[in-house]
Every structure is written in structure tokens, then in C-alpha cells.
């Protein structure tokens, strides 16, 4: 027995304790730093993005003038003139083409099409007065949200003093409202920030992920089962294993170039289509799924296999009847995490043209579309001021999806995980 009170042992012990405290301290500092960065990221996104979750609207009484809009000429007609007339009831003294155009600028460019669609759907409205609530154009939205300051000199802002006067008059008359901006989810992309929404990108991401899942899930599980349960252990299977692990680390842009050359160039598939995007993402997701599946299969205890074999089950019955069902929660978790990665992937989609400007949502994986991350990319590069907050809002939407998918993965794991 050594003497614990001896000087050398005590100093040694102190040193070891010091080391331990230091390591703990480093660990906590690292976690604290990561948490701080995450906080800064999310709070900067929220602080610039939350304003995009509302949209300034103006409500006006529109008299659908039969002189301007004739049933037999639909869908053409003087819809903008009718809208202008409704504003002129507030400002009867505005006249002249330039002034009228400026006044009409309070409405979003989409207002005339909203009105047109309503009248085309119900031509009986011609000759009646209807109430319409339409988005204001972006400069006025910025003004209402105080993103353009009123005390900036007039020459330095997009809205003139006179336009601010009009806006204030409408505001006092109760015509201005700022409801939740459902358009952010239900509209497709637009050149006008007040009309732009994520529907096309959401649908594009959905189709791409569906294709990605349909391809990578069966292929990944199949490959993993073969490698784990059936393949002989030899140099070839080692070589394949090493390469699958390497594939998981290949930068995604490489897969994009591959897809451009093979899927689009050689196989002649359409550019910008979620089908091609999904196939590219599947290439990236495959190694993740294979690795997760193999880990899940490995985690099933040998006793299960041996018991099944012992009662006379064939290898095939063991794998599909016993091992695979038990490994399923782990496989699903891996798959969902792989898909979440694919959802956030941008680089390969840029190469296959999924960063195009498209004002309609895709109805199938073959229609051209954008995806959430590429939509963010497009918005971030747009000069209009309204896109600054919309970019942040779109990132928040993307983050929400990622967090949801990861939460599902965690739930599945904790719910179905078996302790042996």
C-alpha cells in the first residue's frame, strides 16, 4: 500500500484534478461557443425575417365598371383602370398620366390579376361594387414596416413625400392592414417581393425528396443487407466498404457535375426537373443510408439470428423476418437524417438548373422547379429590398423543416429503440 499522504502522490493527484477541470472547462467553452453562434444565427434570421411573415394590404371598394370590363372580352379588360378609379375616390384631385401611374403604384402589380381572376370566375360581378384586399407594392410595404425611414431625405428613398401622404390618408381611412403573409407559403415565385412565395420551391423540394427516397431507400437497404448479411468477407467486400465510406465524404458539387454529364447530357433528361434533382440527391443520400442501415443491422444481437437459425429458419427468413424489422427504427432514423441533408443541399441543384426563375409550381417531378435552398439563393441575390427579409423568412422555413425531420428521427429512435 502506498502512503496517500505523501507529498509526491498529493501533487500528482492535484495535477490530475487540474487536468480534468481544464478538459471540462474546454468542453464547456466549446459547447458555449457553439450555442452562442447558433443563437446569433437564429436571432439574426428572426430579427430580419419576422417582418416577412406579415404583408401590408390595402382594402378598397372596387366598382367593376361595365364600360371598362366587358364580359365578351374577358379575360382582357381595363382591370388596372378600374382599380385606379377605386383609389381616386380617396384622391379625386390626382390627374394626369404620370400622377395616376404613381397613385396606382400603391397596389402591387398582382392586384389587377387578382381582380381579373375573380371576375373571370364570376362574370356576374361586372357592374357591381366589390371589396378587394390586395397587397401593396414593395416600397409601401417597406414604409409600413418602418424599414424605410420617413426621416430619410426624399431623394434617397423609393417613396416620395406625396406617396407617403397618400399612404397615410389610406391608413387613416382604415384601408391599410397588415395580416399574416400566407402568400409566403401559398404563392409561387415572383419578381415582386410582395407576391413572391415558396410554393414552387416547397413542391420542388417535395418531389425531389420523394424521388430521392424512392431511389435511395430500397437501393440503400438492399446494398446494406447484402454487404452485412450475405457478402463473403474478402478483399472485394472490404474494397466496396471503404469506397462507400469515401462516397459519403465526396463534396456534393461533384455529384452535381456527374448528374449534369450523365442524367442531362447523356440520358437527355430535362434540365431543372425535380426528377433529376432527386436522382442526384439520391446519389448523395445512398452512402448515408447504407452506413446507417449497416450500423442498425450490426446492432441486432447475434442471439436473435442464432435463435432463428436454431429453429430452422433459412438465412433469408432470418434477415427479412427477424433482423430487418428489429433494425427498422435505426434504418428509418438514418434515412430521415439523410433526407434532411438532401433537403438542405444546394450545390448540385445549381448545376442541374434548379435555380431558375419559375412562376408556376411543379405538378409532377418532370416540371421545372426550384428547391428551398436554391430559392433562398435566388432571393438573396435579388436587388429589391423586400427580398432581404423574405430571404431570412425562407431560411427560417427551411430550418423549420430540417428541425421537424430531425425531431421525427429522434422520436422514432427513442420510441422504438430496443435495449438488449
Amino acid at each position, binding site marked *: 500500500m502506498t502512503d496517500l499522504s505523501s507529498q509526491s502522490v498529493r501533487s500528482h493527484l492535484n495535477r490530475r484534478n487540474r487536468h480534468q477541470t481544464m478538459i471540462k472547462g474546454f468542453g464547456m467553452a466549446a459547447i458555449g461557443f457553439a450555442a452562442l453562434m447558433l443563437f446569433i444565427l437564429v436571432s439574426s434570421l428572426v430579427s430580419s425575417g419576422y417582418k416577412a411573415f406579415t404583408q401590408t394590404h390595402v382594402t378598397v371598394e372596387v366598382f367593376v365598371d361595365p364600360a371598362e370590363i366587358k364580359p365578351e372580352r374577358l379575360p382582357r379588360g381595363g382591370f388596372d383602370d378600374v382599380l385606379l378609379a377605386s383609389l381616386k375616390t380617396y384622391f379625386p384631385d390626382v390627374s394626369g398620366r404620370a400622377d395616376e401611374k404613381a397613385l396606382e403604384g400603391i397596389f402591387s402589380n398582382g392586384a389587377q390579376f387578382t381582380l381579373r381572376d375573380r371576375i373571370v370566375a364570376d362574370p356576374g360581378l361586372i357592374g357591381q361594387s366589390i371589396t378587394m384586399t390586395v397587397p401593396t407594392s414593395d416600397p409601401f410595404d417597406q414604409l409600413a414596416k418602418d424599414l424605410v425611414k420617413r426621416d430619410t431625405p426624399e431623394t434617397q428613398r423609393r417613396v416620395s413625400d406625396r406617396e407617403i401622404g397618400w399612404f397615410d390618408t389610406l391608413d387613416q381611412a382604415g384601408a391599410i392592414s397588415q395580416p399574416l403573409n400566407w402568400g409566403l407559403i401559398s404563392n409561387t415565385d415572383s419578381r415582386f417581393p410582395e407576391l413572391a412565395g415558396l410554393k414552387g420551391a416547397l413542391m420542388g423540394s417535395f418531389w425531389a425528396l420523394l424521388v430521392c427516397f424512392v431511389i435511395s431507400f430500397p437501393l440503400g437497404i438492399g446494398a446494406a443487407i447484402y454487404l452485412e448479411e450475405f457478402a463473403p468477407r474478402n478483399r472485394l467486400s472490404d474494397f466496396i466498404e471503404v469506397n462507400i465510406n469515401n462516397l459519403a465524404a465526396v463534396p456534393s458539387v461533384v455529384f452535381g457535375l456527374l448528374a449534369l454529364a450523365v442524367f442531362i447530357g447523356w440520358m437527355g433528361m430535362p434540365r431543372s426537373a425535380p426528377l433529376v434533382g432527386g436522382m442526384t440527391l439520391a446519389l448523395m443520400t445512398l452512402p448515408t443510408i447504407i452506413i446507417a442501415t449497416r450500423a442498425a443491422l450490426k446492432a441486432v444481437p447475434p442471439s436473435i439470428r442464432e435463435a432463428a437459425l436454431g429453429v430452422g429458419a433459412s438465412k433469408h427468413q432470418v434477415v427479412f423476418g427477424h433482423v430487418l424489422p428489429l433494425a427498422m427504427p435505426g434504418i428509418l432514423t438514418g434515412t430521415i437524417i439523410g433526407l434532411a441533408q438532401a433537403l438542405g443541399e444546394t450545390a448540385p441543384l445549381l448545376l442541374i438548373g434548379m435555380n*431558375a*426563375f419559375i412562376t408556376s409550381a411543379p405538378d409532377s417531378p418532370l416540371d421545372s422547379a426550384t428547391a428551398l435552398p436554391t430559392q433562398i439563393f435566388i432571393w438573396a441575390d435579388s436587388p429589391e429590398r423586400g427580398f432581404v427579409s423574405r430571404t431570412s423568412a425562407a431560411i427560417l422555413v427551411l430550418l423549420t423543416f430540417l428541425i421537424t425531420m430531425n425531431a421525427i428521427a429522434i422520436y422514432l429512435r427513442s420510441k422504438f429503440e430496443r435495449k438488449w
Partner: protein
Amino acid sequence: MSLFKLTVSTLALSAMAVGAAQARDEIRIVGSSTVFPYTQAVAEQFANVTGAPSPIVESTGTGGGMKIFCAGIGEAHPDLTGASRAMKASEYKLCQDNGVTDITEAMIGYDGLSIAISRDATNDWDLSLEQVFLALAAEIPGEGGWIANPNKTWADVDASLPAVEILAYGPPPTSGTRDAFVELAMHAGCEATPFMKALKDADKDAYKATVKDNCSRMRQDGPFVEAGENDNLIVQRLNADEHAMGIFGYSFLYENMDTLKPVKIAGVSPSAETIGDFSYPISRPLFFYTKNAHRGVIPNFQEFIEEYMSDDAMEPGGYLSERGMVALPDDLRAETQDAVIEGKTMAPKE
């Protein structure tokens, strides 16, 4: 639900893809990121007004767009490409070689390149192009020929300028904006130096070679920072640093006039008027090119061109000028509209 079913549906999807590659009913557009916002505006208006499928507009850069555009005729290839400079002879040749022989060139308007600084900056800037060149070129004429640019502050360039460090954010070499800046600002600034003026009189060939070579290189040692294609990023950096300058299209300055102010060039601020009459020296024409073999084949393509060429879009105060483009003068506009709608084949580029 089985692996079998999933596999079958995968195969079915792939089969659909091959079938779909044969048919296309929407217009496909590629090209310059500068022309992109204008084409977007026309595409959206066109889809809204006619109810036709919305054209698909991709921003690939001028050079990238030309490559894809000139790759061939047929549904796999785009119908129209935007360009922030005229088509080069090499690109014209590529088009011809690939059977894209009938092309119409359309000049749609002008775009100014602005140099801007933060509104918070205390100094008001007024630079000549020669000063811009001396501040941002990799090499400048010095004693005994070309020397690496020694200027660190604007006062080094010209004693009358403030002693502020030179720092400018600008587009990367892949950008049409960069090509335009080099050609319009750097070359002009270079040609204005006494050294080049002397060379011009002495040796025409050497002069041309020098313009192409020494005058075209931006400095790499720090004061000029390539900020990528994202102009909003440059805008943010300018707001963070009051001495930094940014080089980008006029439309970005126009949208951000409350936080940025222009650097005057030779006493002129960029505006729709000064860009249109070329009194602001860094302005350039914008183009698009149409593949005439696709007119009448790709549904709605001719109608789309007509929308692009309509007065609603192109005239001063039209919806393109609301996006920051500077409209063509009336007579040139009328001429362009007629030629492009008709589909006049462009003259060969030599």
C-alpha cells in the same frame, strides 16, 4: 409495401423521364445575371397576361449562357439568352458550328455600372476614370515601364484625394459585369494615362496589345476584393465599412439609395438620364439573342418576344425601367422592336 413495389415505381419514374425529354411546352431562357431581372419581369408579365406556361429563366452568366445557347437546335436547348455585352466572334462561330445559324440580336436598353459608398461616409467622392484605373489596376505605368501598383491610399493616386485606404469590392472574372467594368472603366482610365497616350502615337500595335494585357488586369494584392456574384453581399459590406467602395449594376444602387450614395465619375452621378445619354461614362448596352429556328416551334415563343419588345416593357417608364434598366432612345427603340419581332438575322461577327 415492399421493396419490390418501390423498385417498380422507380423504374416507372425513369421511364416517364425518357418520355418527357421529348416534349417541351415552356420557353427556356438562360444568360446574364444582369439581364436576368428584366427577363424575369417580362416572363412573369407574359405568363400573367396570356395564361401561357411560365417561361423558365436561368441565370448562368453571359458566357455560360452563350455556351448553352449555342450548343444546338432543338427542344433540349434554350430559346433565348440574355447578355450584358455583345456576342463575341468566338461565340458566334460556336453557334454557327452547331447549326444555330439564324440568330436575332436585340439591344434592349442600357445598364450603368455604379461605384457606390455608404451614405455614412463623410467624403463625397468624384473620381476620374484615370484615378480609378491607377487605384485598381494590377500594374500601372511607372518609371521604366509597367510596375506593380504601389498605391495604398487614394492620396497616393492623386494628392487631391483623401488619404483613405483603397478598398473596392467588385465582381469576379466570370461575371459580365466584370467584363464591362474592365472594358468601360479600366481601359478608358488606362488610355487616359500620359504613358498610354505617348505609346498610342509611337506604336499602334504595341498600344493595342498593352490595352488588352496590362490595362485589363485588376489588382490581386488586397485593395480590390472579388466579392462573388452576390451584389447584396457587397451592399451589406459597404454599410459596415464607410471607406469601402462597391462596384455593381445600377439597379442595386437604385434600390438602396437610402443607405448608399454614388461615387461621381468625372463629375457625373449615375441616373437614368446620364446613363441613357452616355454622359455617365460607365454604361453599357444589354442584349438578348433569340434562336429563330425555335420561333413557331416552341409554343408562345414568338408571343414572348413580342411581349419583351412591347412598349409597355421597353419605353421609358415601362416596367423594365421600373426595375432599373435605362430605356433606348425612341428612334432606336422603334427600329429594334421591328427588327426583333420580324426576326432579322444578325450580321456575322468577325
